[in-house]
């Protein structure tokens, strides 16, 4: 059975034809021609009053009869309430647009000139929420969440357009409260006799346009909006890439394999140091990755420095590590160095002392690893990606602002 039951009637005041979009649920409707509010529950359609043409016009782009895609369903805007609230200093207002979907379900679209738009859907809290709980600054429990009551007030219906599911009257008052927890929003409305709860979701300006297809009539605005969306997606991808780069930098030191190491500490006879002591022989390869040589040496007094060198094929020679003795005590010093080789082959690791023969023996421990990735590169890449991501995000905001100003005709695009 179809839920949406449209039906037409002739206005009892001016005779104009009025199309009611959901006749089984509508209890009142305002004639679009003469603004008579008609009670649909009374025989002969009693006239409740006249609202007056041109009063309380909408401030945004939404109008009765517009269609929107909300949650994948086609909706039509069928009614509007203008609510007004005052305190000692000022008066403010907002609109509540009633939308009906093709399956007969209802949603409210709230439109506040300062706060923007939101979609409200009725729901039943798992645990009761009472008006007494809804004090600004209080936290109330909704299911497993404790939400913060941000605002409470009392609105008065100032104007009505279209059809409503109850006999709403100008002057009717309703208390309300809004609460949030992170991205979750809730709204509550009550009178002495009725209490309703809604989940609310903020709707951004670009999202509203997309919902209502507003950009179709302004190709330039649409182009800027679409560019903004694409840039935002790119910014997200860049940011995720940055996070991945930082992640790789964190795990890079652990990616690789050991090549060789000393078997405990290698004794360094004082007499042999100056001539060179072979610490080991290793097979080294060219290609992806690099080698990390780590050594810890006890340097006796009188020894200025040790060099640990690689002697490779074709009498090539390179110093991997230099231990420079600082101070006067017999200290243990360590060093780490990264290197690659241009020619694969067997290399000898040789330690040579500098300058004079030391007075005492020393000792060195060493190990050689192969690593695939250089963490520093990925950190730099991550930083670059973050910067690029931020720049892209700001470009997307700029495009969105241009789109917004083009649509509304504001100055200073």
């Amino acid at each position, binding site marked *: *059975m*179809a*839920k949406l*039951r449209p*039906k037409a*009637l002739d206005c009892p005041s001016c005779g104009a034809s009025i199309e*009611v979009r*959901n*006749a*089984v*649920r*509508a*209890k009142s409707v305002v004639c679009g021609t003469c603004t008579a509010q008609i009670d*649909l*529950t*009374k*025989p002969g*359609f009693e006239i409740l009053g006249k609202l007056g043409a041109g009063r309380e016009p909408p401030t945004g782009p939404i109008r009765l009869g517009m269609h929107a895609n909300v949650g994948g369903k086609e909706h039509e805007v069928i009614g509007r309430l203008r609510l007004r609230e005052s305190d000692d200093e000022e008066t403010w207002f907002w609109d509540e647009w009633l939308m009906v979907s093709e399956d*007969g379900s209802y949603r409210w679209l709230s439109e506040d000139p300062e706060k923007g738009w939101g979609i409200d859907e009725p729901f*039943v*809290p798992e645990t*009761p*929420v*009472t*008006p007494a709980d809804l004090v600004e600054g209080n936290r109330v429990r909704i299911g497993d969440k404790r939400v913060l009551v941000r605002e409470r007030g009392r609105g008065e219906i100032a104007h009505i357009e279209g059809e409503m*599911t*109850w*006999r*709403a009257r100008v002057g009717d008052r309703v208390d309300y409260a809004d609460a949030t927890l992170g991205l979750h929003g809730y709204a509550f409305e*009550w*009178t*002495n*006799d*009725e*209490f*309703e709860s809604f989940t609310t979701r903020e709707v951004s300006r670009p999202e509203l346009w997309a919902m209502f297809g507003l950009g179709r009539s302004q190709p330039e605005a649409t182009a800027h909006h679409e560019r903004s969306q694409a840039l935002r997606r790119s910014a997200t991808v860049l940011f995720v890439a940055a996070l991945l780069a930082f992640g790789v930098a964190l795990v890079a030191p652990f990616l690789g394999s050991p090549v060789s190491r000393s078997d405990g500490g290698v004794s360094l006879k004082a007499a042999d140091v100056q001539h060179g002591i072979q610490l080991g022989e290793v097979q080294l390869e060219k290609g992806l990755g690099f080698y990390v040589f780590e050594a810890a040496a006890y340097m006796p007094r009188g020894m200025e420095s040790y060099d640990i060198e690689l002697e490779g094929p074709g009498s090539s020679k390179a110093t991997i590590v230099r231990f420079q003795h600082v101070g006067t005590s017999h200290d243990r010093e360590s060093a780490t160095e990264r290197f690659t080789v241009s020619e694969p082959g067997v290399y000898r690791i040789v330690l040579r002392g500098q300058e004079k023969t030391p007075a005492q023996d020393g000792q060195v421990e060493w190990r050689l690893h192969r690593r695939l990735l250089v963490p520093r590169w990925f950190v730099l890449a991550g930083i670059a990606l973050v910067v690029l991501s931020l720049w892209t995000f700001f470009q997307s905001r700029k495009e969105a602002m241009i789109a917004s100003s083009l649509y509304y005709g504001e100055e200073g695009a």
Partner: protein
Amino acid sequence: MALETPTLNCPSCGASVALKHRNVKLAVCEFCQQTMHVTRDGVDPTGKTAPLTDFAAVLALNARGKLKGRGFSTAGRLRFEYGAGYWDEWFLLFDDGTEAWLVEDEGDLLLARKTHVSQDAPPFSSLRVGHYATIGETQVVVTERGTATIAGGEGQLPMQVRPGATLEYADGNAGGSVVMVEYAEDGVEVTVGEPVDYDDLDVEDEF
């Protein structure tokens, strides 16, 4: 073997009214809108009511259809008016001989059963919207309360009501079920309803 249902004559216009089930206690003459209480001793007229009007209706008197695959017909209807609108309670007779109420309120449908809990209901004045109330053995969150008037009825119903009578009511929610409590002259009636999707209702000759 077909069950024989009795007929009665309308005390106002004399029209013959066939009673559709054995438990009819209120009947409204289709011709002149005379309402009458049906008792063992006969018919007690209670007055005339204006015909119920519908801008659009889900059901109509004597409609036939299927509800969740079960064939039914609408035997009667009561309308309750309150400040912001009204709700209808349709009395259904299923083809399998069982009965039920289908409540239609602001376009929502509830398949309901009614019970009397005169001793276990809290006073109406103690009910507060948004608060718990214990109705019988059920804890209910009160979502609405108010005063309604029986605007009228049509067809045949299994209870005696007086059109124009007022009653206090409260609606609430109990674990997903809708609970409606009506404080009337003859006691407190609790209606517990399960929401019915429109897709589960198939009415012949939609209105």
